[in-house]
């Protein structure tokens, strides 16, 4: 009997480690998306999908996400002429099934389980310091149905577990936006720098465009002293990501400029905690069980593993190379997958972190500048 129990235990263990985890990762400077498989021990590139249509122009795959039913993945290509494009792929074939042009530099995106609509921020990373938008797309027909104005350079965004609210952060205006996903309107704005009166919108309105002679378009024709550049707002927090907690009615914001993660209480609509991090936190994800938070520290090439119950950073896991980018956590809350960009001709890398152990357990190289990353399935 004892022997049978031991055999059963071994079998169960083997079944447990035999699970395969799959994540999609973008290679922004390779125009590729890699499907990464992690079998509990090793991570491998299962498939590499060339994306875009221009062989001799980098189109920059940036944001990526999987539909709630797991049948499709969506990808934003940042660069176009000048607008970027949202692509829809089948997870079964990894073939394009639809596309739609969005705004300037579309980035993070997600489908709401409540509305079935897809919300994608138009990052406009290289544009003027003016408010950008969130595009709302019908992912069935791949038609953009609405653009909602938010902050300056909106980058990170995620939707509440019930699908009713979309949260995004304006990187340069330092604002957290809450969009009502059914009304398609901004419902609340929170100035994360705590200086609402100096928000980017205010600063922009302080610029007197009437003093610029646009017809001349020449610098020497503009009197910069009257243009209000001193009032141009640059957020100190520089928020780059926001993630709603699955249960505690809070969102967590990566303060890339202030080296902290801000906890925002959605009921009070105020910052309730500031957690010091490594250098330049960039992306954040929270385990589905709500216990752990992983944050990439872009400048120190680390990933912070946080215990949210204790409000404490458990460890900083060194990433395989420089420029840590995105993070996604498996549905069983066991593993975190971190994309690491690398520099120049280096490959991109995906590091796999055992969350409980707070250690890196596998890595795999892929195309250059690994960026957007999303967990697909475990089986």
């Amino acid at each position, binding site marked *: 009997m004892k022997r049978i129990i031991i055999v059963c235990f071994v079998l169960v263990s083997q079944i447990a480690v035999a699970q395969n985890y799959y994540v999609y990762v973008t290679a922004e400077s390779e125009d590729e998306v890699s499907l990464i498989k992690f079998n509990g021990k090793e991570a491998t590139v299962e498939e590499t999908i060339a994306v875009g249509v221009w062989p001799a122009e980098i189109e920059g795959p940036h944001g990526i996400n999987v539909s709630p039913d797991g049948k499709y993945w969506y990808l934003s290509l940042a*660069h176009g*002429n*000048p607008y970027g494009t949202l692509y829809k792929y089948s997870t079964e074939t990894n073939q394009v099934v639809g596309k739609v042009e969005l705004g300037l530099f579309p980035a993070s995106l997600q489908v709401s389980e409540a509305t079935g609509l897809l919300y994608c921020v138009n990052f406009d990373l*290289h544009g003027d310091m003016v408010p950008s938008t969130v595009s709302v797309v019908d992912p069935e027909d791949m038609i953009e149905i609405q653009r909602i104005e938010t902050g300056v350079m909106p980058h990170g965004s995620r939707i509440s577990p019930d699908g009713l609210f979309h949260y995004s952060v304006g990187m340069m205006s330092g604002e957290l936006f809450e969009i009502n996903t059914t009304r398609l309107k901004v419902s609340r704005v929170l100035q994360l720098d705590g200086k609402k009166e100096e928000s980017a919108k205010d600063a922009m309105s302080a610029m007197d465009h009437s003093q610029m002679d646009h017809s001349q378009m020449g610098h020497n024709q503009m009197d910069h002293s009257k243009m209000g550049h001193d009032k141009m707002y640059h957020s100190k927090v520089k928020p780059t990501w926001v993630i709603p907690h699955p249960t505690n009615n809070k969102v967590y914001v990566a303060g890339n400029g202030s080296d902290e993660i801000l906890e925002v209480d959605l009921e009070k609509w105020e910052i309730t905690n500031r957690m010091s991090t490594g250098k330049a936190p960039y992306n954040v994800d929270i385990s589905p069980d709500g216990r752990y938070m992983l944050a990439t520290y872009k400048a120190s090439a680390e990933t912070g593993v946080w215990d949210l119950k204790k409000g404490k950073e458990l460890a900083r896991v060194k990433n395989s190379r420089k420029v840590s980018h995105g993070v996604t956590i498996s549905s069983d809350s066991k593993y975190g997958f971190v994309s690491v960009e690398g520099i120049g001709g280096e490959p991109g890398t995906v590091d796999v972190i055992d969350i409980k152990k707070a250690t890196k357990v596998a890595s795999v190289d892929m195309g250059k*500048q690994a960026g957007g990353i999303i967990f697909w399935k475990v089986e």
Partner: protein
Amino acid sequence: MRLILSAPEVDVNITSSNTKVVSVAPFKKLVANSAGKSTITMEAGGVETKLNIKIVENPIVKIDLKSDMTDGRSGDVFTLQARALDKNGEVIENAPINYSFTGESYDISAAPSGLITPEGKFVADEPGLYVLHATCGSAAASVTVSASERNITRKIDLIGRGSINTKHTSDLWIWEGVDGKDYAVTGTWGADGKAYFWDVTDPASITLIDSVQVDARTVNDVKISEDGKVCVISREGASNRKNGLVIIDVTNPRDVSIISEFSENLTGGVHNVFISKNHVYALSAGRKYYSVNIEDPANPKIVGEFELDTPGHAIHDVWVEDGIAYSSNWDDGVQLVDVGNGIAGGSPSNPVQFASYAYPSGSNHAAFPYRDEKTGKFYVILGDEEFPYGLDPGGKKPSRAAGFLHIIDFTDLKNPKEVAWFQVPFAGSHNFWIEDDILYAAFYNAGVRVIDISGELLGDLNRQGREIAWIVPEDPEGYVPNAPFTWGAQPHKGHIFYSDWNSGLWSAKLRPVVPENAAVESR
């Protein structure tokens, strides 16, 4: 007469009250049969409108037709002069004259073909005998012209190469260094941020002599200053996302050194640059270009910028010649901007746009000006960039491009006109260069095409036999093997240098033109 309807998809019923005067022909055309009056009724969806037409006697009884030449070559433009005369032999001004042609090819296997314009300019594609007609009502006249073989093809020989087969190669620039020797710089694409410097003094022995590496994944463009001392390379894919450009001292190309890096307003990536008179014209994030003063290359300074204000405007390239910047702006076509020429009072710090031309495909990717001294014509040649065939999912098969070169007659700056084109089937244009009435064009998967653009240009230049030569860089050891994908071509001191995406730098040479009366020795 042709009726022009604002909604051509609507089925319109057209009738004439007097078909002896005006009858209705297919495709909504009216035929004037005799002098008199008729009411034309048009009905669609229960809505009706009427048009009263009066037909007068055609006073033209004769057309006097001349051609400026009767013997030419395929690709030469025959200009017709037609005068409409009444029964008294008086000229009737502004008579509506229609031109057409018939012909027979000298090659029995080829159909006669050509183009005749409403202004009476004819060009033959196929060598042959052509009858050019001018008609006005029942009056008609013809002249017969002969278009012989253009006969300008020349042999081209591969001379040398500098292989790069571990990464993609992008643009090139060839220049005479301060030491009198000849050098080249090539960029790299989707790689490790390197630019390579070559000694090409002997084009048969191209030698890699130095390189620089910057924080980038693509060095898309490389340019050298007029004095051969300063190189500017563009950066895309910098790890800190602050791209911009890098200025390099190339006084000694065997030991180049970075003078400065500059990213102000250029963080979004610089796809293309140009250097002219101590200013760098640098694209910013595909939206606009800045003029950057580099009199002190260690301290570059933005002095001006040019950006369109059209919805969704974008830019791909800028080329400066004689103080005029020619920017290629995709949907917005080419923009001619005075940055120091004086034609519109512009300067590097005050760029002034004075002319433009856009075409429907919106694929304008590159531009190069060309003044033909003999005809006095001023052309700007515009190149497409198109990839309708998509990508090889595995990334290991040769790519195939599309698009062609559009020849725009800018002689009248206010009324530019697309007059000719050069196309290579199943291939697409990229960067190109013009020297001595010859166009050197990189056509991606179709290699380098060398094209005779002398004289007036009209119609399909390729079909006219204006292609002098072509050479395709095929390399079984290439980054993608046997996958020519030529990026740019530049003539220099009698040789043609060209860069290829999958195989690096190459050189070739056209064999000399053999005079028609050259003595042929025989035993």
